[in-house]
């Protein structure tokens, strides 16, 4: 077994061990899980440092020349960086979870599911063909379901897990159709072979556009783009480290990663590109608008994630996978940081999540406050934090390619600054608004250390000299100071507006139901689902009652009864009648034998 397989299989072994053997001992389970992810992380570093590792692929399905699915690992720059990101942030989250989930009854189950998630996510990163990636894609969906529903006794958590899985499945349906279409055209499912055979599909632009859009459907589901974004805010019912790992840094980034991986396919279909860019933009703007009116700290961050994912998808649609990956890279760090910081606040305030019950925490949770501030400044794109550089890359791209998208993206940047500063001002400044806030103390070291490490990354990962080690940075024309200047102005105005509006408030001065209810998407979807189910139920009831029960069953019995009644008329018990019929029969027989 060659070395890189070990990175993929260590978390799987951990999940299996915990599930089968050590569920009773929470300490041993958590140690196994942390050890596995640290081992994967070390493996990722080794793979990153050593150039050109060749990994032979194992054959799984071999029906050449029609269908060939190997199990192979791809180790190019993109996957090595993503691997470092996933295992690194995963390791930090495992360590943080040791503190966050300390008193939880299902701790073993949690760590087993977490290890399983790491296995699935690493699988997506390392897959070298579409079918293998699709398998791990689904496994990641399963892990997300298990983890969101970790506290399954809560109805809201169980519902949220189901919603996440079903919404993902809708996207995955399109994804599978897209894979089948591309396989039919190019004759292969492996990414390399597909790239070589690309000319076979680009000669049919309509077909290519549809296939690309279907594949994008998978990213719409997994990365929670409009219109399949509804699961991500509800997924906040899961434990906060999960929200940080899955729904901020890694799983939702899988959609963007996949799009970049098949960028050669997508960039050959211009109409698909523009649709992708617009969906990303719509998601970004819509989510930012909704975030300005939320009062649950995790929901604000969830909508913020939606908005930033919109930026990444927008970059993919503007034909720059590098800009998307750059933003994914910086976003992973600062979003994980923000979520972990929120987690530390939540747990030290005894599971209080309403920002209007917090306040004045800057003094009480000092390190959390400083790291949270670093994450916020990175998110809103305040120079010289990392978000500034990556967001600037996307804004420059939009400025060159599509002015409408650029202005919307700029507006979103303004809104991002607004709602994040609203969060910071309400939570950390002013006077505490509840007893729990007054009693808040700093979190233990096992939770603080990942925050500090992530804060360092959030500060530093934007600089060219750092990012260049990991990524191909987007090139492109230099637009000078115009775009960064406008971005900074938007950010600053958002910050100032938020501070002015939300200083020293006891409750929210703005009250826009449209935003608070997230544009009523949940209500609309709920209505349509109920209506469709109602129609289907009524149709089924009609068929069952009238066609099957009345028609077929009663009909069969009535027909049999009717025939029986008719035949009974022949049975008169009269000997002479029987003789007559006998005579008729003989006549018929003679006629048919002799004269036909």
């Amino acid at each position, binding site marked *: 077994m060659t070395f890189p397989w070990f990175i993929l299989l260590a978390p799987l072994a951990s999940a299996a061990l915990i599930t089968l053997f050590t569920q009773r001992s929470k300490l041993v389970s958590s140690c196994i899980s942390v050890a596995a992810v640290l081992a994967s992380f070390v493996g990722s570093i080794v793979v990153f440092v050593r150039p050109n590792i060749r990994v032979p692929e194992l054959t799984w399905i071999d029906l050449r020349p029609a269908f060939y699915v190997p199990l192979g690992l791809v180790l190019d720059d993109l996957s090595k960086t993503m691997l470092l990101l996933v295992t690194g942030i995963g390791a930090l989250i495992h360590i943080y979870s040791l503190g966050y989930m300390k008193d939880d009854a299902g701790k073993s189950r949690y760590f087993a599911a977490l290890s399983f998630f790491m296995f699935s996510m690493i699988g997506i990163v390392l897959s070298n063909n579409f079918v293998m990636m699709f398998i791990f894609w689904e496994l990641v969906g399963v892990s997300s379901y298990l983890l969101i529903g970790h506290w399954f006794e809560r109805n809201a958590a169980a519902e949220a897990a189901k919603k996440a899985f079903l919404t993902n499945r809708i996207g995955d349906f399109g994804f599978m159709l897209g894979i089948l279409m591309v396989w039919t055209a190019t004759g292969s499912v492996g990414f390399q072979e597909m790239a070589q055979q690309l000319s076979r599909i680009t000669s049919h632009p309509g077909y290519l556009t549809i296939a690309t859009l279907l594949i994008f459907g998978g990213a719409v589901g997994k990365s929670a783009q409009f219109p399949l974004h509804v699961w991500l805010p509800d997924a906040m019912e899961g434990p906060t480290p999960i929200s940080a790992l899955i729904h901020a840094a890694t799983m939702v980034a899988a959609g963007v990663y996949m799009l970049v991986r098949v960028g050669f396919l997508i960039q050959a279909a211009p109409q698909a590109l523009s649709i992708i860019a617009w969906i990303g933009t719509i998601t970004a703007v819509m989510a930012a608008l909704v975030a300005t009116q939320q009062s649950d700290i995790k929901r604000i961050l969830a909508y913020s994630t939606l908005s930033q994912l919109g930026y990444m998808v927008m970059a993919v649609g503007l034909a720059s996978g590098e800009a998307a990956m750059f933003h994914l890279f910086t976003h992973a760090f600062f979003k994980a940081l923000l979520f972990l910081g929120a987690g530390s606040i939540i747990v030290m305030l005894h599971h209080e999540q309403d920002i209007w019950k917090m306040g004045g925490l800057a003094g009480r949770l000092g390190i959390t406050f400083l790291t949270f501030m670093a994450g916020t400044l990175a998110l809103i794109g305040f120079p010289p934090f990392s978000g500034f550089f990556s967001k600037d890359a996307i804004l420059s791209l939009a400025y060159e390619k599509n002015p409408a998208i650029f202005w919307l993206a700029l507006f979103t940047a303004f809104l991002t600054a607004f709602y994040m500063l609203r969060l910071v001002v309400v939570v950390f400044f002013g006077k505490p608004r509840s007893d729990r806030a007054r009693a808040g103390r700093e979190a233990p070291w096992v939770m603080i250390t990942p925050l500090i490490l992530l804060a360092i990354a959030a500060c530093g990962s934007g600089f060219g000299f750092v990012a260049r080690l990991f990524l191909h940075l987007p090139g492109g024309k230099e637009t000078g100071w115009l775009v960064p200047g406008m971005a900074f102005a938007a950010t600053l105005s958002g910050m100032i507006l938020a501070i002015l509006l939300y200083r020293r408030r006891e409750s929210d001065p703005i009250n826009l139901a449209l935003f608070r209810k997230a544009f009523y998407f949940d209500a609309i979807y709920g209505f349509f689902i109920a209506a469709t189910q109602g129609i289907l139920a009524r149709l089924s009831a009609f068929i069952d009652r009238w066609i099957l029960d009345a028609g077929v069953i009663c009909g069969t019995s009535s027909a049999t009864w009717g025939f029986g009644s008719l035949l*009974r008329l022949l*049975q*008169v*018990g*009269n*000997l*002479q009648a029987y*003789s*007559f019929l006998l*005579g008729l029969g003989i006549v018929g027989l003679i006629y048919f034998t002799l004269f036909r």
Partner: protein
Amino acid sequence: MVTLGHYLTVSGLLFTIGFAGVLLRRNIIIIFMSLELMLNAANLSLVAFSRFRLDGAGIPNYNAQVFVFFIITVAAAEVAVGLAIIVALYRARQTTHVEDISNLKF
């Protein structure tokens, strides 16, 4: 000249009368008698064929006449069995009206 056709016509008429008797008479012994009449009609046609179908040397085909003997014998045996059944039926039902024996009517 009396030809084969005449004999066959008579035989057919006898058969028809016998069949009509089986269908239309109410007394079971008369029905039985009509049955015998049908058998004898067949006998008559057999003998007629034997008399009028001559082979090359002018000799009639005697197979048919032998067959008639068989039929007569079988008819006799049948009558014996049939009358025994009728007697048993009379003892059970006290009637010879065939219309009254309709237990198999639904």
